[in-house]
C-alpha cells in the first residue's frame, strides 16, 4: 500500500489542462414541476477519482447522482460519460452501478444470488459467474455467508453485500448514495478506509453522495460542496477547509469564527481589516480586496491561541476577553471566549500533555491571538 500512497499524493488530473474528464456534467438543470433541484450545474470528474458530492439534504446532490445512474433525465443540459452522451440511455444500459442508501438488497435471494444478479442479466456463463461471485465474496469478507438471505445478516454485512453486488459487474463508475449512513460510528470509520483501499485496488471512479463532511473529507480526492442545486466550490479537502471560497463553505465545513469588517490598509501580499469587534487584523491574501471594501476574516478554532499574557503581536491579530465556556473533548479542549464587545468566539487547543499545570478556568481574563496566515479573507 506504500506505493499507492505516493501515487495518491501526486494524483491531480484536474490541475492538468490536457487531461480528459471521465464524466462531464454540462449545464445540467433538473426541475420537478416548479422546483429546481439541480440548477445549471457543470462538473468534471476524472478517471480513478474519488469524488464527493457534499451538501445538506435537499441540495440536489442525490438528484444529480440519480441522473448519472439514469433514474432521472435532465430537464436540460447533458452528461457525457467516457465520451458517450448518456441522454436517453436507460439505467440498464449504462456502464455505471449504484450502491443504494437503503442497500436495496433483493430480499428473496441469497447473498450469492444478489451478487450474481447483474452478471446473470448480462448472460455471463455460469462457471464465470460462480468464479466472480466467489471473488467478490472474498473481497468483502463474506465468503461464509453466501447462502444467507439479507434478513439473516447484520447491518454491516448487508452494506458489504450491497457493495459487492454493485462492484460485481466491474462498472466504469461506482455511484454511492450515502453508503455508510446506516452504520454506527465505529463501523463507519473502518468502512471509509476499506472503501478507499478498494477504490485504489480496483482503479475505479467513485462518485459518493454524503451529507457527512468528515466522511467526504476522509475519502474524497475532491469535494463538490452543493447548495440549492448549484456547486458552490469544487476542491480538494485541504483547499475546501483552509481556503473556502465563500462564507457558506467556510461555515458548512467544520467550525469557523467570522469577523466582519472593512479593509483599512493593503500591503505586500497582506491586507488589514478593521473588524466590527474593535480590533485590527492583518492577514495574508493573494488577491486582496481594495481599501475601504467590506471584507470578512474566517478563522478556524484550532488556529486561535488562548493565553493569559498579552501576545507579542498585540494590538494586531489579538483581542482581550474572558473564558465563557470550556468543553473538554479528551483529545482537545474547546474554549468559548467572550470578547469585549460580547462576541463569543471558539478556540480549541490540542491536549498534547496529560495534565496542564494551572489550566485556564472559567471567567478568566485571557488574550486570543493568531498568525497572519491563519485566517482567510472572504469578500462579500
Amino acid at each position, binding site marked *: 500500500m506504500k506505493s499507492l500512497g505516493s501515487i495518491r499524493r501526486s494524483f491531480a488530473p484536474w490541475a492538468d489542462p490536457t487531461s480528459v474528464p471521465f464524466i462531464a456534467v454540462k449545464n445540467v438543470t433538473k426541475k420537478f414541476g416548479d422546483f429546481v433541484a439541480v440548477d445549471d450545474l457543470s462538473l468534471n470528474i476524472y478517471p480513478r477519482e474519488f469524488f464527493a458530492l457534499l451538501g445538506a439534504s435537499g441540495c440536489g446532490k442525490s438528484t444529480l447522482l440519480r441522473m448519472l445512474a439514469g433514474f432521472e433525465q435532465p430537464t436540460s443540459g447533458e452528461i457525457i460519460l467516457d465520451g458517450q452522451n448518456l441522454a436517453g440511455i436507460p439505467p*440498464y444500459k449504462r456502464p455505471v452501478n449504484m450502491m*443504494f442508501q437503503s442497500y436495496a438488497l433483493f430480499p*428473496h435471494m441469497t447473498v450469492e444470488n444478489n451478487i450474481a444478479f447483474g452478471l446473470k442479466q448480462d448472460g455471463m456463463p455460469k462457471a464465470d459467474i460462480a468464479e466472480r461471485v466467489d471473488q467478490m465474496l472474498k473481497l468483502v469478507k463474506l465468503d461464509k455467508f453466501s447462502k444467507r438471505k439479507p434478513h439473516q445478516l*447484520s447491518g454491516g454485512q448487508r452494506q458489504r453485500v450491497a457493495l459487492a453486488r454493485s462492484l460485481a*459487474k466491474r462498472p466504469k463508475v461506482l455511484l454511492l448514495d450515502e453508503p455508510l449512513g446506516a452504520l454506527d460510528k465505529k463501523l463507519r470509520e473502518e468502512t471509509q478506509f476499506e472503501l478507499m483501499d478498494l477504490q485504489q485496488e480496483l482503479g475505479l471512479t467513485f462518485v459518493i453522495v454524503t451529507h457527512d463532511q468528515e466522511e467526504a473529507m476522509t475519502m474524497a480526492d475532491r469535494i463538490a460542496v452543493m447548495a440549492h442545486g448549484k456547486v458552490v466550490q469544487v476542491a480538494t479537502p485541504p483547499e475546501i477547509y483552509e481556503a473556502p471560497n465563500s462564507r457558506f463553505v467556510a461555515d458548512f465545513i467544520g467550525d469557523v469564527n467570522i469577523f466582519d469588517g472593512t479593509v483599512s490598509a493593503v500591503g505586500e501580499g497582506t491586507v488589514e481589516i478593521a473588524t466590527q469587534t474593535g480590533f485590527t487584523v492583518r492577514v495574508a491574501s493573494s488577491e486582496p480586496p481594495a481599501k475601504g471594501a467590506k471584507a470578512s476574516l474566517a478563522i478556524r478554532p484550532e488556529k486561535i491561541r488562548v493565553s493569559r499574557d498579552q501576545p507579542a503581536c498585540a494590538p494586531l491579530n489579538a483581542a482581550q476577553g474572558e473564558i465563557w465556556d470550556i468543553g473538554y473533548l479528551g483529545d482537545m479542549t474547546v474554549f468559548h471566549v467572550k470578547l469585549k464587545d460580547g462576541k463569543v468566539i471558539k478556540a480549541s487547543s490540542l491536549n498534547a500533555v496529560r495534565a496542564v499545570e494551572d489550566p485556564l478556568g472559567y471567567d478568566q481574563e485571557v488574550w486570543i491571538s493568531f498568525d497572519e496566515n491563519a485566517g482567510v479573507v472572504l469578500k462579500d
Partner: protein
Amino acid sequence: MQRWSRFNIASIVFGFAFLYLPIVLLVVFSFNESKLVTVWAGFSTKWYVQLFHNQALLDAAWVTIRVGLVSATIATVLGTLAALAMTRYTRFRGRMLFSGMIYAPLVMPEVITGLSMLLLFVAIGFDRGFWTLMLAHITFTMCFVAVVVQSRLLSFDRSIEEAAMDLGATPVATFLQVTLPVIAPAVFSGWVLAFTLSLDDLVISSFTSGPGATTLPMRIYSQVRLGVTPEINAVCTILIGIVAMGVLIASVVSRRREIQRVKDEQAAFAH
C-alpha cells in the same frame, strides 16, 4: 396477570355461542339418522353417502370449482395489474376516478352488480351460461385482489427495482425476477380471497348464470326452498371443513415463517 371476571367469561361464552352455535347445530344434524332436521334419532353417515350419489349436487360442485379456479386466476392477473397501475403511475389523468371505480364494486350491493351484468349480457345478446358466470365472477372479485395487492405495493421499497435495473435488468426482467417474487404472498392471498368469494357467491351467480351452469350455492338454495334436508347439512359440513382446513394451514404456515424469521434475525446479530 389478567383476571377472569365473570363479566369477561360471560362475554366470551355469549360471543362464541352467537357465532358458532348455528354452525355446530348444522354439523351435528348432518349426522342425524332421521330425515327430520330438528329431531335427533341417532348417529349416521348415510346423508354423506347419499350426497355422493346426488348427480345434480356433484355437477354444481364441479361448476363452482371450475368457475372459482379460472375466475380467481384471471381476476388475480387483472387485479394485480390494476394495483400496479394505481401505485406506480400516480399522476395520470383521471386517477382519482379510476381508483374510485376500482373500489366501487366493494361497496356496491350485489343485487345491483348482478342485475346490471344481466342487463348487459341481454343487451349484447350474450347467451347466459358458464362463460357469463365466469365473466361476472372475474369482475366482482378483481377489485378485492386489487385492494390486497395495492396495500402490499404501498409498502414496497421501489429502490430494489431501481437496483435491478441498475444491474442491467430490463423493466420486464425486473418485474418477473424482483417485483413479482417479493409481492407473491400478497398476490397469492388475493387469489385465495377471490377463489373464496367466487365459491360462495349466490346473488350475482343467480343473475348471470344460465342453464347448465348452476353453482353449488345456487343448488343448495333451490333445494332449501323445498325444505331443508340433512343432505344439505352434509354438504355444508364438508364446505365448512374445507374452509377451516384452509384457514388452519394458512395460519400455521405464516406462524412458522414468523418464528423462522425471528430465529434468523437473532442468528444474524449473534455473529
